[in-house]
């Protein structure tokens, strides 16, 4: 590490960082401030700069009580829906990817290459470009308004399959030889050797995929019609774009804060795995 001897440059670096970060944090900070005031406080310009006294009231309203007259329904159910969807997507992606990577690296079978290229091709078919036909197929399979419907069409993962494949290719051949000499079958080898060695990759992928799942927007928007199956991001959007009234900014922001709190905490707590997963899976 090169250390510069210019004290001025060092101070300037810190100043730039602090100012830049303050600027970047502005949207999140004002969202939090807005979620602690009454709507009336927010409608008098300029909006307050410091948190108010309505924190408990606002969050209690959006989470438990609701405000039916203003179109605010309690979002506890939506938080749970988001959580279930994110878990299904993250776990599902990891399970299908690790199994197919294991098959592709450790087995010789016809169409092995074809399977690999088919998985690769999913990289070029994000849900946004196949949204209308995927919706029609999910509808014809009776999957709308179900957790399966929310998660299954997003579960294939080329990046996760590549990462596991890459990881398996670096494992020494002797491991497999030894396992076979000891009489272990393929699944025993997978369970006792490959899986424990993939722990770190699983953890990093889980963080990335959980956030990906939690933050899904377009697919839940078309795949759910009942508000019971809605996600937290979706219910925030519905309240924010309701056309016939003044936006209930205090409640909208309380829901927005709830919706961003979970992925934010996941990133902060599991930061090392998150950065590793992000950098590794793109290589």
């Amino acid at each position, binding site marked *: 590490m*090169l*250390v510069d001897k210019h004290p001025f440059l060092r101070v300037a670096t810190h100043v730039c960082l602090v100012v830049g*970060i303050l600027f970047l944090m502005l949207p999140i900070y004002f969202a939090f401030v807005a979620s602690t005031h009454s709507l009336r406080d927010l409608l008098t310009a300029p909006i307050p700069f410091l948190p108010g006294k309505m924190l408990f009231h606002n969050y209690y309203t959006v989470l438990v009580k609701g405000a039916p007259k203003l179109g605010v329904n309690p979002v506890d159910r939506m938080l749970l829906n988001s959580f279930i969807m994110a878990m299904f997507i993250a776990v599902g992606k990891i399970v299908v990817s690790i199994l197919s990577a294991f098959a592709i690296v450790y087995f010789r079978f016809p169409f092995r290459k074809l*399977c690999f290229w088919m998985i690769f091709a999913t990289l070029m078919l*994000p849900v946004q470009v*196949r949204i209308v036909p995927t919706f029609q197929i999910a509808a014809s399979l009776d999957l709308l308004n179900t957790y399966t419907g929310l998660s299954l069409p997003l579960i294939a993962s080329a990046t996760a399959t590549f990462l596991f494949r890459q990881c398996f290719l670096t494992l020494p051949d002797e491991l497999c030889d030894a396992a076979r000499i000891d009489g272990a079958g393929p699944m025993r080898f997978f369970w006792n050797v490959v899986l424990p060695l993939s722990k770190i990759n699983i953890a990093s992928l889980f963080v990335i995929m959980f956030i990906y799942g939690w933050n899904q927007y*377009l697919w839940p928007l078309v795949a759910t019609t009942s508000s019971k199956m809605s996600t937290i991001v979706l219910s925030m959007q519905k309240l924010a774009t309701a056309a016939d009234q003044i936006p209930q900014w205090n409640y909208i922001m309380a829901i927005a804060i709830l*919706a961003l709190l979970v992925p934010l905490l*996941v990133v902060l707590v599991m930061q090392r795995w998150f950065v590793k997963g992000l950098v590794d899976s*793109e290589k």
Partner: protein
Amino acid sequence: MLKRSHFKVKTLAYLLVLPQMLVTVVFFFWPALKAFYESFFIEDPFGIHHHFVWFRNFVELFHSSDYLHSLFITFVFSLAVTVLTLFGGLFFAVLADRVTKGRTVYQSLLILPYAVAPAIAGVLVRFLFDPAIGIFPYWLDKIGYHWNYNTHASQALFLVIITAAWQQISYNFIFYLASLKSLPHSVLEAASLDGAGPFRRFFTITFPMLSPITFFLVIINMLYAFFDTFGIIQVMTQGGPANATQTMVYKVYQDGFLGLDFGSSSAQSVILMLVIVVLTVIQFRYIEKKVHY
């Protein structure tokens, strides 16, 4: 690649790839083929008439000023987002790489926007720029600038651009920081001994060495701007005012779900698939080269 030491139980291998293959075929290939097929048909909204029309949907798209406009908007939007996020990410990465005190705190804060869903980011920035109560319009008004992104096309486009950039800066920051850490220090130290100051070292050594990662990030940022910004647009402008923020992906959704024009929407999906194929191929060709290099 296959391991030298491998198994030959075919049925088990098929069972292992089966789950991913099922999802891939049912929810990726089938919809893609359906879009491809539908793009050659015209259907009325009630689904009664279904005519094979060859390439008419495509021809009509490229004769429609609406579609050409959305191509243009997508181009401007993705270019602006790409440039802003590259500069922002590099700026913060270079600074964070230089500090020793408080490094982890800076890093944690700089990656936070990545965790925020695009739709949430949209509503957060919309609150700051709301013409009635937003803090920025309030300040802008004081210096005599009238702000209302609901009626001004360029203001709306500007707003969705900075929101998308705000989110994606974190991603660029992470990748730039990781590659700054992996630069060979001996070269930088040699330059330093030769009397090159920090700025000179950055422009003559660090920056050129970052060009592979920059190229990679250009592609990633373009893919992001094309495909992952739907939520931002939906929450902030719904493609308006006067289609000023209607990107190609947003138009697929609008024409398909709101306009019920499946033929045209499918043709647009096919065009988007071509775009993503081209970007992915460029990205992977480049990575192949990097491995040999």
